């Protein structure tokens, strides 16, 4: 048992976890963050993706203790970001989902990609998003939604 300190979506929290506990379980069960989905449990589907210190990681492959002292951002935390809000609206506008189970992971990952490079090349964008699987197959709409949201991220970097 270890007590770890996590800054989750802007709020610092202290939780007690087992050494062998996954970050995914800690987030869902101890902190009630349910946008982080559990599906394959082996690092393939990417639905449990969160930003750990700003970098996308699969939380089913990460130990909770590894995240000690770090900042975790999930889809919930992106509501406070104006650009990310526009990105989410763009997902709705383009119908970039069918069942919606993968949407939080795609939003988090594409937010990371656009923050890093708002002028990301089309092929590069597809590569950047290849860690998340959409079982409904709405990849094209997701691609369109992210491309459409590029402008909000560009504006932010200029001002």
């Amino acid at each position: 048992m270890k007590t770890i300190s996590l800054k989750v979506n802007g709020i610092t929290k202290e939780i007690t976890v087992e050494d062998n506990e996954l970050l995914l379980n800690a987030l869902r069960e101890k902190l009630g963050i349910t946008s982080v989905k559990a599906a394959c449990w082996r690092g393939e589907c990417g639905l449990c993706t969160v930003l750990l210190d700003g970098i996308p990681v699969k939380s089913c492959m990460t130990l909770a203790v590894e995240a000690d002292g770090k900042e975790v951002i999930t889809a919930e935390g992106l509501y406070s970001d104006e650009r990310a809000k526009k990105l989410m609206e763009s997902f709705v506008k383009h119908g970039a989902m069918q069942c919606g189970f993968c949407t939080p992971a795609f939003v988090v990952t594409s937010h990371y990609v656009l923050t890093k490079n708002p002028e990301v090349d089309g092929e590069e964008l597809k590569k950047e998003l290849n860690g998340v699987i959409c079982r409904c197959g709405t990849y094209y709409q997701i691609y369109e939604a992210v491309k459409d949201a590029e402008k909000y991220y560009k504006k932010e970097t200029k001002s």
Partner: protein
Amino acid sequence: MSFTTPYFTLPKFTYFKPTKLEDALSLLRQYKGKAKVMAGGIMLVNLMKERQIFPEYVIDIKGIEELKRISKTENGIKIGSAVTAIELQNSLIVRDNLPVLAKAASYMGDRTLQHTVTIGGNISVGMPSTDGLPALMSMDSLLRIKSQDGERTIPASELVIGLGKTSLKDDEIITEIIVPYSSGLKGTYLKLINASEVAITTVAVSVLLKERKLSVVIGAIAPKPYYFDHKSLQWKWEASLTENLKNASEIIGSNVKPMSDAVASSEYRKEVSKVLAVRALKEVFGGA
């Protein structure tokens, strides 16, 4: 809701995250045989979930700064074992001098995992699907291995000794990878992934050409990658590329003994090895 069955949970262990290499080595000595080193941890976590390994102690080396450096020296490019696949692709030193390694790194798992996967972890699990090892072997890289007793340096080709087995002792860590470089290096890394739900490498080919020295490494088809050089391929520098390719393809075909598994059959892997090797050689020789 809490899953308690294997596959969703990990066996019990104690986690350490030393910030100094000496501390990591002394922990490994203290818990010799009961501890596992964790860098990115992808393979380690999956093997623990599948209950294939039960380490009592897990030693995370991501906190050790000296294992995360990339530097250019006279003896070669030095890459710390905890450098991630993304860092390899973004590093100007690697991109400018070792494009083959940068390309191999772009194949290590999917893009999200590449933020986590490390070069040291990728090669030291001893799995045939490693992308790092064929690339490093084609560049005649050396591995620097440390334990509390001291250090030793071995060629990358001597690391893997069987399926999931390496020549690393229980208390040793790969600390650094030393890759020789020189101007005028040409090379490429090609790979075929089975288009099933699991993105496991079927065949990987790494080719490096330096003036009149050629090396072709074929990975993922057997526990240990196959190494061919211009001598074993009977490469004739004066002969035409077409003739050389035909010859090389035959030699590769008669020398490799690929394994059959859920991903691909032995016969299929043999054919793909020949095709990919020819494709890679064509690319390196500029189709001339």
